[in-house]
């Protein structure tokens, strides 16, 4: 991550928002499209469909850059939510009901909340750190929930691990994540 230097996802999104900067978009595409494509393939899309949907996702990023609010979500989170919603719309042919107030996370109103930005950056760092310290089996349950589009019941059926065990691993992972986040919020 770039911090204050004028490259990196946040700066690219800002340049897209301000000037429709195609060079910044190309950089953003090179950074995210391969990961978004992998994400879609992990949820069952073939490579051609995955690439097409990844382009839909980045096209949405291009269009919505002016409403991106870095104090609400960092670029990783914002792009994850867009990719997740496209995955549901395209691959499952469903319409994802979105909460009325957060119909916004994708289409947020820009604010000037630098404190919130700092808090949000710290949260992302804490989440990263928490993920890195999770026991393997808990990390696997999380990854499977997020990437393979499988419910815990489906995961239990597929792996032969009892549903109760999967649920408790997931619960432990969430407790651990929350703990790290609370520590990070209470530290000065």
């Amino acid at each position: 991550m770039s911090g204050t230097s004028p490259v990196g996802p946040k700066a690219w999104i800002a340049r897209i928002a301000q000037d429709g900067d195609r060079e910044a978009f190309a950089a953003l595409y090179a950074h995210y499209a391969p990961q978004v494509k992998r994400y879609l393939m992990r949820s069952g899309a073939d490579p051609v469909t995955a690439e097409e949907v990844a382009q839909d996702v980045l096209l949405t990023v291009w269009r919505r850059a002016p409403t991106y609010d870095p104090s609400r979500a960092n670029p990783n989170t914002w792009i994850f939510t867009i990719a997740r919603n496209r995955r549901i719309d395209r691959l499952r042919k469903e319409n994802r009901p979105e909460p009325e107030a957060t119909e916004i996370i994708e289409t947020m109103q820009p604010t000037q909340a630098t404190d919130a930005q700092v808090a949000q950056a710290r949260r992302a760092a804490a989440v990263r750190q928490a993920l890195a310290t999770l026991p393997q089996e808990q990390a696997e349950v999380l990854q499977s929930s997020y990437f393979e589009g499988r419910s815990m019941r489906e995961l239990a059926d597929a792996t032969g691990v009892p549903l109760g065990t999967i649920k408790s691993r997931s619960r432990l992972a969430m407790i651990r994540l929350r703990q790290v986040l609370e520590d990070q919020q209470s530290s000065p």
Partner: protein
Amino acid sequence: MTTPTHLIPEELLLSYAAGTAGEALSLLAACHLTLSPESRAHLDTLEAVGGELLAELPGAELAPGSLEAMLARLDEPAPAPRPVPTGDPIFPAPLRRLMGPQPRWRKVWPGVQVLDLPLHYGPQPVRLTRLAPGIEIPRHTHGGQEYNLVLQGGFSDRGADYLRGDVAVADDTVEHHLDIHDDGECITLVLLDSPLVPRSLKGTIAHWITGI
């Protein structure tokens, strides 16, 4: 205005954040999240987890000419944004979208009206119920899972009060009855994956007549 204290289960919030919850459970989550700042803050964290997991994925190789194909799409006209549906604001927007402009409530029992939504939870339709002040939903248990989200008014269940935004969760291990608060009509969103199993004579008769 108080905020909800009976939040949706974490497992459900996780599957909503991950995008693995089905449409009915996603509707329940979206309606609850509209009304609960606490659950929204929790969702923000779960989405941040998704973002960091995405960032850690090894990239897949893009097809040759991928960037050029992408750049050629940037000038495609953007689709019009979905309009926010009109209607009574006690129903969160994702619900208004499903209810349509002229919802047709059915009276199924004295003091009980239902509106089936064009969406299923398991084999059963997701429905809204309007319950008259002070009535009782007789003692029953469930063949499976039940979620009951309060949109207006309130009810008491097993010694706890459920008000706007609160979610009551029950399954086949729970036998209960609901007392609708007497200070006004109660409206709830109900997900029930199999019919109620009555546990009283009055309930058996009601079940037999209403099929609920």
